[in-house]
């Protein structure tokens, strides 16, 4: 019988002891797998937060409110803030961190005879978020009738109007099922089909008309001029660096809520660091535990090593046999670990409503790590045994 076969069969020789060792390893490996999976899920959640919280930078023509001016205003950036600015933004040194850009062009529609005199006409890419004036880092506009603009609407004569605008200026009741059938809005002498009504919950925010950017350009002829560009950064960790680069652009105001960005960056970054640290700590400590369990479980095998040496086994054969035994025990433990992980996952789901499913890569990582640490742990008694003479080893228990 070869040393490897002997090693693979050895765990089944003393079933109770092997059972205890395998159970202990299975629970440790299973628990660590769940913990590492938990740390990985935490990291994913934090990345979601970092990619979503306070990541929008608003660019406007320098010195302007960014709503298309109030009657002939000439802010400093009036002549320079345009489609060309988009290209300048793409060339900043931290451009790699820009996740997306959305350009908007505004013009007020003032009717002093109405209580809500200032309606805002906003041109945007059809799939860009409909952000009402005052909303910078979020958008609350929800379609309450009809539909939103979509890609095929680019350059079409269509519009989505706010609830208040629809009611006060078009006489449309958004609650009616036929509210939009054949309804139109006249903008600067052009007739546009109203395809949807949105609501933000606020009168001021619901007094806008969103139209496709190319349609806006055709109707109002602003040339290349833009009112706002919203730059979304890939992570809040990079917002300050991107903002600093954007502030170097001439004729551009780059606006963020800097205190909130700083808080979000620091807190989320610290949490991500803590999670990363916890993952590494878990892996290291799991390894130490597995190694020590194996030291404890195999140290009494020194006598057996002496016997093997007495019957002529070479040191290499003893090491091979030991490694084969560790492999057998680890594989058995891995099967148990899957069950243990499922059990702990179920307990967490029941207790904390947390969905922790063990993925294959985590399990593979933990099992391979478990085998490596178990092999290290079993090396101590093996090397101790093979250094002794057969007689000393057989006496040394």
């Amino acid at each position, binding site marked *: 019988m070869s040393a490897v076969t002997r090693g693979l069969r050895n765990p089944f020789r003393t079933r109770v002891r092997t059972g*205890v060792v395998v159970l202990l390893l299975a629970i440790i490996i299973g628990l*660590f797998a769940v913990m590492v999976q938990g740390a990985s899920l935490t990291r994913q959640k934090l990345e979601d937060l970092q990619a979503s919280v306070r990541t929008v930078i608003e660019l406007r023509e320098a010195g302007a409110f960014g709503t298309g001016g109030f009657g002939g205003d000439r802010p400093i950036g009036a002549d320079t803030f345009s489609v060309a600015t988009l290209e300048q933004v793409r060339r900043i040194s931290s451009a790699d961190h820009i996740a997306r850009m959305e350009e908007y062009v505004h013009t007020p529609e003032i009717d002093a005879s109405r209580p809500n005199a200032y309606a805002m006409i906003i041109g945007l890419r059809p799939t860009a978020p409909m952000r009402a004036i005052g909303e910078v880092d979020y958008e609350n506009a929800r379609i309450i009738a009809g539909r939103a603009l979509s890609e095929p609407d680019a350059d079409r004569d269509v519009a989505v109007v706010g609830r208040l605008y629809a009611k006060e200026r078009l006489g449309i009741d958004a609650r009616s099922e036929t509210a939009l059938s054949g309804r139109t809005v006249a903008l600067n002498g052009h007739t546009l089909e109203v395809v949807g009504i949105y609501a933000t919950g606020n*009168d*001021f925010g619901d007094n806008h008309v969103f139209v496709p950017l190319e349609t806006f350009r055709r109707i109002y002829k602003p040339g290349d001029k833009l009112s706002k560009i919203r730059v979304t950064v890939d992570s809040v960790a990079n917002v300050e660096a991107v903002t600093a680069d954007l502030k170097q652009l001439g004729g551009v*105001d780059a606006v963020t809520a800097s205190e909130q960005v700083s808080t979000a960056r620091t*807190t989320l970054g610290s949490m*991500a660091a803590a999670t990363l640290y*916890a993952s590494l700590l878990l892996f290291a400590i799991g390894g130490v535990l597995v190694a020590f369990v194996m030291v404890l479980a195999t140290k009494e095998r020194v006598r057996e090593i002496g016997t093997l040496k007495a019957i002529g086994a070479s040191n290499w054969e003893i090491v091979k046999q030991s490694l084969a035994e560790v492999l057998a025990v680890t594989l058995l433990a891995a099967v148990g670990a899957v069950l243990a992980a499922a059990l702990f996952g179920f307990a967490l789901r029941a207790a904390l409503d947390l969905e922790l499913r063990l993925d294959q890569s985590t399990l593979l990582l933990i099992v391979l790590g478990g085998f490596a640490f178990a092999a290290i742990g079993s090396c101590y008694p093996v090397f101790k045994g093979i250094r002794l003479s057969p007689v000393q080893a057989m006496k040394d228990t």
Partner: protein
Amino acid sequence: MGMIVLGLRNLLRNKIRLILVAILIGVPFFLLLAMNAIGDAVQRQTAVLAKNVNTVLQLRARGSMGHVNMVGQDRILPQDVPEKMRGIEHVEHVEPYLLAMAPITPPNFVMHVGLAPTAVKRLESHGEAGNPRIIAGRDFTPEDAGQGVAIIGQGYAQWAGIKPEDMGTATLTVDPTRTHPVIFAMERPTRELRIVGMYASGYVFGDLQLFLPIDTFRSIYGTAEGISWVFVKVDSVENVPLVAQRLRETVGDVADILVPESAAVFTATTSRTVTQLSGAGGLLAIALMVIVVFFVLLMTVRERAREIGTLKAIGASNRGVTLQFLTEAVALSLLGGALGLLLFRAAGAMVTGRLFALGIGPFLPSHYKPLFESLAVSTQVSASVLLLVLVVAVLAAVVGSAYGVWQAIKLSPLEAMKHE
């Protein structure tokens, strides 16, 4: 008593085994304390995030920008709105502002903002961007309330010919009769304000504001009552939707309420998951400690079945054997616990702080490096946590040991001595 002493002395009989077992118990104990400290640090950071990001709501009169002299946009909130809001649960503070526009050349406008001297200086174009940096002169103090003083943005100051070195002596005349295509004249006398400070916001439009005490604003523009804007700070992002709902019920008939609701809900939900996950890490660490302690004691007792047989053969009672082994188990778990605690107190700060940053930092993106220092994982352990963990560990040790002893004492002395 004799068996207890024997149990304690037995610990020292095989020093290598003692060290191995103490380490086996101490390591999960250390892990538990470390996970607890990391969980605490994560929860502290989550609390800071939940308290400070996406927790500010803005209110204006319905459909209006709330500028007291803007054509068609001069509706403002009733005077009693802030007081009504202060009574809402989870509202931390309420800050009222009054705003007016003033024309400048080339054609553009600046904003005059009345506020309580200690309130956050909010920028018209981005209310959440607050407290721009004072670059010359001084900030407001509570004594400035009602005084003819102002803090000016550097862009506005440049237009008005005011230099940073003139702070405290420079003056600016506010003339409510001046007009612009969207600014109507208010028949009020001009008022000279002493400029005590200059600020910089980091962008041109943000630097075109003048902050003045709200009572001074009222006397200049004749706005005895009413509020242009109110900013409401909610105590936690978790409560933003609830406060928004209460505000709609309380003042929704007169106010537009700008709420970062979707962002707040996302932040709250995801932060809650992160907190739950860090809590789950702590629970799993406790489970791990219990299981390791139980099995380690079970294994060490099983190895000594022959010794139990010998003790029985020389006349030791089952009770005596159990007492001896349980004493050993309690002492071992206490020793392991003490080792884990010592490790944590001695190396916890180093491992969680600088050593980790130095060891792992170079492999991480640059922005992570300073964060390890702000991670602030504390190596302080509260007495209640320590006591709870020790009690749980001792219980696990006693149960593991008792189970092993129970199995061994069921055997006859001869069987036990044969048992490996």
